[in-house]
């Protein structure tokens, strides 16, 4: 009797109606002397009924939560990985010149390449704009080397490949007596 009542309490919890609980407990008290399997089958049916009641309530509660979660996901969605490949464009000089004039103003017309980048604020603006334009950032190790616009132009004229020398060699057409084995 104690076992049956305890199991019912565990299964239904506080959500079961008091009339159902009393009916189940009465049934148990009557069937205490009968076989265990009979008691178990009787145990099952009221529990399923109890759980079906609870399921409806839980579904109603879950729907607004899921809507909030779906809104949060695209905000923190990771953007696709970008390749580090950089090919210097042909009109590099003119583009850099226009950015220099935009940041520094049209002070130095003749030798815009000699403009010094001593002031951090203007240097930051220029380098940030060039990074956005070309998709290629000056790394931390080379920031202190950028003393003038000439250094920046030199940096942006170096192409960068995505991949190792090995990939580059294997993608090219090899002479007939040279073979590359991938699995060794």
């Amino acid at each position: 009797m104690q076992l049956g009542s305890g199991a019912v309490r565990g299964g239904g919890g506080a959500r079961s109606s008091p009339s159902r609980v009393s009916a189940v407990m009465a049934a148990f008290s009557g069937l205490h002397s009968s076989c265990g399997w009979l008691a178990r089958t009787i145990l099952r049916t009221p529990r399923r009924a109890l759980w079906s009641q609870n399921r409806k309530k839980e579904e109603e509660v879950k729907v607004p939560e899921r809507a909030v979660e779906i809104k949060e996901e695209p905000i923190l969605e990771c953007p696709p990985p970008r390749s580090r490949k950089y090919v210097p464009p042909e009109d590099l000089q003119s583009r850099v010149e226009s950015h220099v004039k935009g940041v520094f103003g049209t002070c130095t017309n003749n030798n815009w390449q000699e403009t010094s980048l001593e002031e951090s604020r203007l240097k930051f603006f220029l380098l940030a704009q060039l990074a956005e334009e070309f998709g290629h950032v000056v790394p931390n190790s080379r920031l202190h080397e950028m003393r003038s616009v000439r250094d920046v132009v030199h940096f942006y004229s170096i192409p960068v490949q995505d991949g190792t020398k090995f990939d580059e060699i294997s993608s090219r057409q090899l002479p007939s007596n040279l073979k590359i084995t991938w699995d060794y």
Partner: protein
Amino acid sequence: MLLIRAALGGRGPGLGLTPARRALSTLTGGDLGSQEQALTTGLPSPGAVPLLRRCELPVPVHRTPVQAWVESLRGYEDTRLGLADLHPDVFEVPPRLDILHEVAIWQKNFKRISYAKTKTRAEVRGGGRKPWKQKGSGRARHGSIRSPIWRGGGIAHGPRGPTSYYYMLPMKVRVLGLKVALTVKLMQDDLHVVDSLELPTSDPRYLSDLFRHRCWGDSVLLVDVDEEMPQNIVSAVSNLKTINLVPAVGLNVHSMLKHQTLVLTLNTVAFLEKKLLWHDNRYTALYPFHLPYSDFP
């Protein structure tokens, strides 16, 4: 702020959070109004405020500071929020690999106590009596059954008791080791400066995605000044094995070499510069440093 990044995420690396947007978002606290304005702005205007950091301690006249981008962990494209000047006597010292090796080996060994111990012939039980007489038995002459040439005998030159491998390198050598390690990390593009360690979520996947997107390597060491750090980062890092969070006093050469990337906050950079540069121009200690000094940082 975060909505913009999601919308523009597919368009390439250049169109990320510009200083204008960062300034707007910090000023307005990330309201929807600022987001709508920032969606329309393109390149940063000269009126925006970048996060610039100057060296607080004087830089020698003949040297110029090294620089690093100031980034943020709040969004995937929050790189290039400003420029930080780093003191050359901390972040641009000659690359003394021998000092790095010395300090790394010291760190490994000074805590070591080996507890191995073996018994000598005097300590092994038994062996006080001469086993057989000197002459006449036909066998080799022996004095005790526990001599080292006997089976079950003592060990002649074995480890003797707990051995301590404690030694201290001079303080200036350890300081130089830290400076060299910071220099090496910066010059190999493994150092990143961040404005603060605030995260939008405490999800560890966000942090690992962020580091993978920015190609910061497999293992990252995050350093902040105080022991009190934002709860988001603490809970995110506690679930990750290769990303670790230490206070600035816990920074050491072995950890810096072990982790592929080092991430310092602006406060940490100031703290490190102050602490490490003091040793360049100081008198030799007349009494131990754990006693109060008037100018000890």
